[in-house]
């Protein structure tokens, strides 16, 4: 079990998300950085969809009540196991009674704690992700609270320490042109692309709201249509919203652009006051980036298997 001593600013159980229920208004949820989860699970020999804890900001503390092989991935939140410094992209072994702490870091916002076999909470609608808006899934439908005890299977054989080169984060994010640029003022897409945007402190897992001294106001609305993480909505106030994993399933604001799937993970680290810029690409670039990411994960898995076999 993992006992929550301090949940920190916001920690929740997440996996690769809830799919197949959007038509019922059920959000995707899931980790904001799927590559970090896949890398953590690859390090531990888990299936890709095993659930982890997504830690936001840090300032959190957990106790392993049983032996555990674990990995941390994502941003470097200055984690420690007892007094030993831990680094993202590494797997480690904890003994019963060991304490893992996440401090914080000015440059990073989210870290992922994966355990061998994954956290063993019940699947709800085929996913272990916490839907924090609708209050189901994860651990009792909520962000982690002090005193929560999260089950997982203990590790019988301590693992060797091993690392995957962490994938870098950037604040230059590639986007595809949105379908509603033609109903918005002519230069709005160009303005979206030329400005450096600041992430607002109203941002959360539902969406990153972006600010700039000159905004992109308008008076257009569209018939509500399906939306998903990555879609950039432009509400009449002119503050673009990059929808993230807890977003609603339909929306009536014009869609000015969409973040390519391979780059959406960068928003997992963009804390309020951080800036970002957008770069327009086409579907070929987007598809190639996605394929490349999938191949990287496959390479990780093969490399880890080879290392395990050598021992």
């Amino acid at each position: 079990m993992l006992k929550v001593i301090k949940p920190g600013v916001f920690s929740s159980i997440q996996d690769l998300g809830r799919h197949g229920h959007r038509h019922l208004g059920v959000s995707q949820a899931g980790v904001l950085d799927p590559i970090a989860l896949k890398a953590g699970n690859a390090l531990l020999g888990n299936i890709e969809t095993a659930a982890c804890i997504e830690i936001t900001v840090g300032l959190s503390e957990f106790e392993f009540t049983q032996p555990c092989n674990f990995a941390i991935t994502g941003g470097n939140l200055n984690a420690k196991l007892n007094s030993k410094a831990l680094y993202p992209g590494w797997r480690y072994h904890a003994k019963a009674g060991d304490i893992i702490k996440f401090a914080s870091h000015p440059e990073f916002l989210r870290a992922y704690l994966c355990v061998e076999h994954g956290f063993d909470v019940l699947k709800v609608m085929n996913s272990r992700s916490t839907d924090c808006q609708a209050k189901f899934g994860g651990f009792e439908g909520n962000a982690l609270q002090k005193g929560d005890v999260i089950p997982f299977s203990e590790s019988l054989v301590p693992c060797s320490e091993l690392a995957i080169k962490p994938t870098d984060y950037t604040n230059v994010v590639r986007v595809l042109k949105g379908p509603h640029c033609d109903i918005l003022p002519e230069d709005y897409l160009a303005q979206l692309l030329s400005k450096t945007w600041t992430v607002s402190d109203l941002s959360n897992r539902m969406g990153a709201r972006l600010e700039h001294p000159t905004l992109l106001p308008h008076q257009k609305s569209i018939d509500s249509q399906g939306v998903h993480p990555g879609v950039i909505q432009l509400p009449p106030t002119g503050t673009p919203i990059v929808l993230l994993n807890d977003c609603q399933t339909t929306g009536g604001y014009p869609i000015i652009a969409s973040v390519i799937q391979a780059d959406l993970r960068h928003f997992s680290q963009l804390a309020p006051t951080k800036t970002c810029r957008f770069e327009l690409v086409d579907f070929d670039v987007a598809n190639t980036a996605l394929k490349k990411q999938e191949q990287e994960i496959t390479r990780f898995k093969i490399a880890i298997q080879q290392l395990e076999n050598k021992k």
Partner: protein
Amino acid sequence: MTCVQCYQLSEQALVLSIDGLITQEVRQKIFALAQTAYNTNDFFDIVPANSSITFYLNDFTRADYWLEQLITLWEKSEPEVFTPKTHLIDTFYGGEYGPDLNEVSELTGLSQKQAIELHASVDYQVGFLGFLPGFGYLESLPEQLKLPRKSTPRAHVPALSVAIAESLTAIYPSSSPGGWHLIGRCEQPLFNPHTDSPSLLAPGDVVRFIPKEHR
């Protein structure tokens, strides 16, 4: 006449969008196409809305194929392929259950009884779901009951409230903030994630409200 186009919104999302008058026949065609596409197993999610359907591809390399194929399927789509499910929803109107019924009556010039009868006289169709899990946007409210949203939204709308706004009516599956006029309450659970069919309502379903006497 309607004009239909299909475009790619993102790597995995294709949108069929319909321009023009959305008649009942067009609506049935939307639900029929959603069902046909669902049966191909090529999509992990299909989200019908008022004048569009968004299809989420399992394999993004199939995008070009489906961009063409969806238009062909739309043209061949027969409205009668879709048979909606009908739900009868027992509803307690007014009083503590519908704190805005009085205001609705004043704003529309209808008596409370007339407003209730009018609201319960129509078969509504679930256009789409969103906002909250299991929250269906039900169309179309009789013309005389159409009102803008409340100027100040409520911070707390009780679960299972029956509400109206603009040309729509809805039932809140769970408690949440909300800006619609609350005219009644029902008892039937609308959403339970722990069951095999979590949502009572699905796109295209028909809903009829049955007024019940307060106990």
